[in-house]
């Protein structure tokens, strides 16, 4: 009886193990499922960078820059819609009446720093000058305005006499020291040794800086780092910078952001990004990646659907937060642009110029950070329902492991698997029975021969297969493939053709009509293939080998017959349906090719 119980226990255990295994497989699949949204296939480049923490590949850099552009665009759009501005180049002009006040100066700093911004700055500078004549400014405010003045391309000498000199306003608070250092650096004044040493003295015993108390404050620490950078020739300053970087790295939160007064917020995160950009540290270095989340991940999770940034998670749009985020994004973009290979070749001459102005701009940021602290209280009170939270957060789970492997590594794994399969086959044959009747024993020699020949056959066959695969198999990882197939934008003297891919359904356009460079001998199919590869849209087709005709079965996961027996992909050239092999239709310059998903054997496409 006991024996029996043991057996049944064993069976139940086996069964549970099976269920567990199935569960693991299923949950793995569930995670995969969540991760992949249709058509967003180009995204994985990001993951490569986040997981490995290595220097960014060019493809990753480009996708990151695109993301940055989108975020910057979002903030500007939000601000414009608030002000009722329709033309972006007028934004600074509209802002000018508020020049010299905190959030507005931030937008100005970001816009002026952005090389792609082409707007008139004169009105803003004039108003700034007016504000500086105000008889009772605080020293920090006055420093900020002066820095903006310097950064706007003006000299100290150009200041009118009636501008209040900030030196007379000194109160020797830590922010005041920080600003004085930046002010001196911006106007190339002699090194203020006294200020520098008193700033270094105020470092906390555990590292970092704070307005008061013994706990390092992120904003103040990051600002101090920015102020110290121009003086890093001095050994004491260099050591201090190193300590600050260590402290900052330690205080980063798991989601990549930074917290001030216990709350992760936009401003603190933005300040650290600014400090790292200014010190030309790699913003994406391992030291600032926590649980796979980079600083950039930490910042962008505060963006709301409207484009503006919230002070903290779950909050509403906040002027200072949006302005600082905009500024950090603009600086980060500059920083990344310099890492792009061809950019650095083109603009080595202008690099120095940009860098010096970059440093000058950093100075302007400090003021907002100090306001940050005072804003903490207000911001935490105006808690909005978290439904306002944007979808940009989340989705940062573990990526597909395959994406961090290069094509070569994937190929090695594949070959290993094929070899293992061969071993499995040999084992199953070797352990197998000799064919023949039950109880019949063939001679030892016959048995041996039988095994030997079979095993030899498998061995030779499998080795040949492996060698062939090793020689001729071409494996690309997704990022390598995208990089290889990146299409350059057509220049003016090149012939172009236009392509669009329209599902005429819920999924809308896979590709809105776009111009592509016409290559020699291009057919409708070769164009489609090139473009889908470059855009990470999956393409399934039959034929095409040895000049046979090509039939496109599915684009972007949408296949023929999925929406009825008469559904499938058709194409039009210049508005005319072509009912023939897409490989045989040669394109000429200016042709408009439309791929349309029909549900009625083309009758609905004809319209």
């Amino acid at each position: 009886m006991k024996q029996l119980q043991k057996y049944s226990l064993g069976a139940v255990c086996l069964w549970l193990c099976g269920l567990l295994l199935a569960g693991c497989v299923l949950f793995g699949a569930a995670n995969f499922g969540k991760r992949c949204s249709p058509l967003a296939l180009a995204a994985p480049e990001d993951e490569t960078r986040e997981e490995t923490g290595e220097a960014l590949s060019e493809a990753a850099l480009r996708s990151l820059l695109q993301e940055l552009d989108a975020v910057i665009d979002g903030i500007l759009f939000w601000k414009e819609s608030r002000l009722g501005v329709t033309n972006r180049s007028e934004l600074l002009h509209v802002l000018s009446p508020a020049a010299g006040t905190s959030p507005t100066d931030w937008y100005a700093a970001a816009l002026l720093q952005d090389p792609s911004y082409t707007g008139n700055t004169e009105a803003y500078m004039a108003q700034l000058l007016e504000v500086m004549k105000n008889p009772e400014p605080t020293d920090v405010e006055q420093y900020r305005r002066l820095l903006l003045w310097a950064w706007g391309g003006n000299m100290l000498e150009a200041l009118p006499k009636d501008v209040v000199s900030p030196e007379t306003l000194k109160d020797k608070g830590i922010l005041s020291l920080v600003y004085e250092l930046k002010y001196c650096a911006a106007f190339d004044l002699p090194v203020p040794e006294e200020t520098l040493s008193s700033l270094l003295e105020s470092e906390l015993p555990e590292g970092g800086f704070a307005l008061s108390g013994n706990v390092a404050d992120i904003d103040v620490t990051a600002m101090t780092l920015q102020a110290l950078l121009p003086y890093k020739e001095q050994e004491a300053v260099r050591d201090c910078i190193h300590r600050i970087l260590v402290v900052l790295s330690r205080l980063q939160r798991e989601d990549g952001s930074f917290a001030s007064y216990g709350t992760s917020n936009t401003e603190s995160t933005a300040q650290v990004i600014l400090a790292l950009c200014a010190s030309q540290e790699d913003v994406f270095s391992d030291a600032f990646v926590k649980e796979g989340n980079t600083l950039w991940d930490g910042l962008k999770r505060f963006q709301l659907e409207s484009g503006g940034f919230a002070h903290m998670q779950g909050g509403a749009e906040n002027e200072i937060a949006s302005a600082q985020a905009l500024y950090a994004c603009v600086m980060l973009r500059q920083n990344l642009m310099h890492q792009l290979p061809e950019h650095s070749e083109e603009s080595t001459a202008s690099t120095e110029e940009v860098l010096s102005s970059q440093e000058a701009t950093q100075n302007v940021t400090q003021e907002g950070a100090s306001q940050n602290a005072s804003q903490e209280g207000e911001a935490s009170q105006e808690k909005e329902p978290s439904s306002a939270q944007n979808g940009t957060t989340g989705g940062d789970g573990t990526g597909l492991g395959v994406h961090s492997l290069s094509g070569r590594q994937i190929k090695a794994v594949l070959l290993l698997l094929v070899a293992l399969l061969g071993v499995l086959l040999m084992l199953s044959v070797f352990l197998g029975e000799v064919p023949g009747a039950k109880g019949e024993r063939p001679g030892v020699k016959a048995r041996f021969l039988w095994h030997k020949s079979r095993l030899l056959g498998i061995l030779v066959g499998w080795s040949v297969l492996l060698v062939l695969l090793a020689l001729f198999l071409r494996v690309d990882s997704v990022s390598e493939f995208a990089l290889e197939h990146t299409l350059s934008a057509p220049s003016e003297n090149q012939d172009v053709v236009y392509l669009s891919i329209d599902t005429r359904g819920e999924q809308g356009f896979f590709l809105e009509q776009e111009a592509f460079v016409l290559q020699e001998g291009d057919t409708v199919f070769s164009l489609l293939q090139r473009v889908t590869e470059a855009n990470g849209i999956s393409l399934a087709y039959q034929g095409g080998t040895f000049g046979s005709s090509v039939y496109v079965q599915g684009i972007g996961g949408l296949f023929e017959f999925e929406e009825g027996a008469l559904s499938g992909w058709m194409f039009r050239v210049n508005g005319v349906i072509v009912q023939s092999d897409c490989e045989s239709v040669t394109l000429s310059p200016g042709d408009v090719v439309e791929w349309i998903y029909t549900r009625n054997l083309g009758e609905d496409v004809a319209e």
Partner: protein
Amino acid sequence: MRSMANIHPRVWFLYLCVILGITMFLWHPGVAAVSLLGACLWRHRLQLSTKPAQLLGGLFFVLLLTGINPLISHEGVTVLFYLQGRPITLEALIYGALAAVMLESTLLWCSVFSNIMTSDRLLAVFGGRFPRIGMVFTLVLRFVPLFLRQWRRIREGQQALYGTAQSYRERFAGWKREMVVMLTWCLEHGLTTADAMAVRGYGNGSRSFYERYRFGRREAVCLAVILLLTDGLLVLWGQGYLRFECYPQIQGSWGQPMDFFALVLWSVLLFAPVVPKWRKKYF
């Protein structure tokens, strides 16, 4: 005490058909995995061969099919990598694995089916009501093993006459000879069978049928349990559980409590008869 082997063949037939049907038509990783495990256990209990060679062979088969599907099908949206410029998608890989496991378990269940449903049981299933179908069924099922057995006998005879084939040419010639002998034997055997049946009165009006098996209370209980479990499973399926779609993106229901409950129902249906305690009692 009546043994489990004496349960009415109609119950057995229904049971195995239900299992085969669900295994083949309910596409869900959980169902397929449990089914594969169940088939292996059943084969073990029936003392069918579970040698490592066969398990390895099965594994090879499953892995091969899993690998082949993504090479042929490029559906799905999650591109893992590109092979010869064609995308290998996660969805196709998972679809391949699911299909392979399903196929393997179906094959194993078929072997279980043929082992349990011997010809006398099959005749009892169709019984007096469909004598012709039962007749044809048993003849067909008997044919392949009979054919193989006869072939082996002929080969042994040929080898005794002419010796073991030394070269491929000789072997081929041997096959040709064996095939000719087989063909004539088949024709002759068919005639003999027909004659023997005619002598026994087949085809001369209606015949009475001797039922060896009784449909008693135990059969009713078994039938009720099988139908109840199957109904539960199908109702849950109808409610949207145990659904699984691979293309274009993996979707479906798993991990919900009701899914696990459905899998438990399915497991009870498969494993209950092979639990050792009951088996010892009935088999």
